[in-house]
């Protein structure tokens, strides 16, 4: 079923919308949640909550990309869940991603301005606009989807070590870009 038709089901308050969403984007949402939480029960719960959040927000929302919309919800929920359990259970997924993204934190000087998360997201989007499609996709698949380096390397056909270096260059590029924008995180 097309995304527009699924969104119409939400607007018509037809519960078939949930089934259609699960059928089309269930594995996608599960994957993002698992990449962050590395726990099946926690991921299941986040995905379930995602459907609930989608039901609550459509209407009035009518997203252009249902996939990105759902992915964003499940990602936020997974990150929140990760933070709430972080003290007890050290998950591998989000920790590794956080550790890598630490490379992107600009060394802001006194003149740098502090930005909020929303503006930071827009700056990251602008940085990605300037990259080649390969690099842009790599960055998003690694840090938005949370896909493993080994998996991405297999998809591209390169060694994981080689891809790790490439991702490091992308992160350093983001850091330089943010520093160039005069941003402090």
């Amino acid at each position, binding site marked *: 079923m097309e995304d527009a038709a699924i969104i119409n089901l939400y607007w018509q308050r037809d519960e078939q919308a949930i089934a259609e969403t699960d059928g089309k984007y269930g594995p*996608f949402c599960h994957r993002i949640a698992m990449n962050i939480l590395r726990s099946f029960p926690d991921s299941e719960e986040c995905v379930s909550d995602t459907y609930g959040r989608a039901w609550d927000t459509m209407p009035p929302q009518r*997203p*252009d*990309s249902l*996939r*990105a*919309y759902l*992915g*964003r919800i499940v*990602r*936020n929920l997974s*990150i929140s869940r990760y933070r709430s359990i972080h003290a007890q259970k050290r998950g591998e997924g*989000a920790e590794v*991603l*956080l*550790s890598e*993204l*630490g490379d*992107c*934190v600009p060394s802001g000087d006194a003149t740098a301005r502090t930005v909020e*998360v*929303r503006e*930071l*997201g*827009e*700056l*990251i*989007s602008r940085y*990605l*606009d300037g990259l080649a*499609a*390969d690099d*842009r*996709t790599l960055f*998003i*698949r690694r*840090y*938005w*989807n949370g896909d493993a380096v080994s998996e991405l390397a297999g*998809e*591209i*056909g*390169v060694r994981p070590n080689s891809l790790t270096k490439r991702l490091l260059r992308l992160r350093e590029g983001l850091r330089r870009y943010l520093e160039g924008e005069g941003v402090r*995180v």
Partner: protein
Amino acid sequence: MSGAEKLFDAVTGIRDDLIEEAQSYVFPRHKRTIPYRRLAAMAACLAVVLGLTAAIRSGVFYMGSPSSDGVDSNGAGWTGGDSGSNWTGGDNENASTGESSPPEDAEAITFTAVVAEVHDAYLVVEPPEGEKLLLSTADRIEVPTGDLEELPALQVGDTVEITCTGEVMETYPARLTEVLSIEVLEPAP
């Protein structure tokens, strides 16, 4: 909230069109360059293995290459040249032209067979009913008798026990190199 965590949250806000593009993007597959050195090493190993296998099958390791005058590099003679026979067995240290001699440390082998043919200087034997000759894959073996000091009277159908050095020439029929003794176990019915 640390800088990394803030960035992690901010990544969530990447534009929809970029997210959508990334989900359906197909990476052009990089052709991995073949490590030619490794390939060459593997080819060399394969060549060595194949060469060794061929050498073992042709019996090179047992006797070496026969020379044109019928004497091999170890001084041992061999018969059955027209049939392209090959030795099987160990090296002959005490060989002289036209004759073979068993290695000093060759073990004697005893086997049972049934006499199929009786000739002046040799017998032809076959495995007993329902059995195979343990000595050779051949179904018939020539047993030279000319050098035996004691040879019992033999007839076709006798079951005999033959003691030999175990070396078998891969002719057809196969031929024993040296027979040490022949004993009748059961006369022909």
